[in-house]
């Protein structure tokens, strides 16, 4: 089994700050971070009723399918995807090789502006994810438990979930 992906509070706050600023700088409606397995990491924007869980899983499926297409034609991947709609548009790009950044924008912004702002934000987020990786590795090397809520889970706890 692979090791779990972990997100700590401190880095979560930093990521939140980056996407909040990105949303403002790019004049976007919504900015969203999701891991490649479809788990939502952070979100910011004005689209309050958006179903972010579905957005996360469909984005991950979309990126996985496009990566599959890329491999078929001998490409390593398509790091940027862009979908143009009648009102809203989607810009999808990869951060730190395993995280997907999604931006929803309308006519108040433009693809050029979004791409420009994404570039800077991506560099910042890459460093934050590097810090998370280092932290996880260090704690694992030192044998420190990550204070997991599941370290002492009992079968009764699990049974209770289904009652």
């Amino acid at each position, binding site marked *: *089994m692979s090791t779990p992906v*972990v997100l700590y509070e401190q880095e*979560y706050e930093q990521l939140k700050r980056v996407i909040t600023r990105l949303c403002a700088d790019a004049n976007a409606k919504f900015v969203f971070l999701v891991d490649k397995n479809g788990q939502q990491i952070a979100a910011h924007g004005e689209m309050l009723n958006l179903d972010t869980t579905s957005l996360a899983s*469909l984005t991950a499926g979309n990126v996985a399918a496009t990566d599959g297409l890329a491999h078929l034609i001998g490409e390593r991947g398509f790091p940027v995807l862009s979908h143009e709609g009648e009102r809203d548009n989607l810009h999808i790009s990869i951060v730190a090789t395993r995280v997907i950044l999604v931006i929803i924008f309308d006519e108040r912004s433009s693809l050029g502006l979004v791409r420009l702002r994404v570039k800077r934000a991506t560099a910042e987020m890459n460093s934050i994810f590097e810090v998370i990786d280092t932290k*996880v590795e260090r704690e694992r090397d030192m044998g420190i438990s990550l204070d997991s809520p599941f370290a002492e889970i009992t079968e009764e706890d699990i049974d209770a979930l*289904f009652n």
Partner: protein
Amino acid sequence: MTFINYASREINCKIVYYGPGLGGKTTNLQYIYDSTAAQSKGKLISLATETDRTLFFDFLPLDLGTVRGFKTRFHLYTVPGQVFYDASRKLILKGVDGMVFVADSQRERMDANIEAIFNLEANLKQHGYDLMKVPYVLQLNKRDLPNVVSASDLTAELSRKGEPVFEGVANRGVGVFDTLKAVAKQVLLELRKNGGG
């Protein structure tokens, strides 16, 4: 791959329903969706063809409740069962935490079951997983049909490692939650084994 978010105090796990085409994978998810309270579930997404055959995947997010202060959320996926959708099937296994194999008990689907299990083992291997180590449950579906192989013969043929086996009639909900519970339990106990990190 389990995702532990200490900021929002959430743990997300991914469970994939695998098996031959028309075996009842989507029906399992549909039953779970229909019988779960609105506040515990998200939208059931089905990327299907016009004839309701799964094209890419079905997806159902499910909140099971809180364990030790952490919200426990399971993301349930199905794969397309038809043989020629193998490329899509492979993609969905990425980051899986637990597997359910939904077997079709009808005599004439035995070969399809066996082919699908071999396919599962091969595709897991490509992602670096070993079926022997992944939390895994076998469901023998369609037990209400007249032309079924006996449960013991099916188990003998399809069981890989003494995994929990449940007889099911997914369209009536028989065995559906037992299956889900058994796989969820294994996933959570796996987290305990790994210390969550």
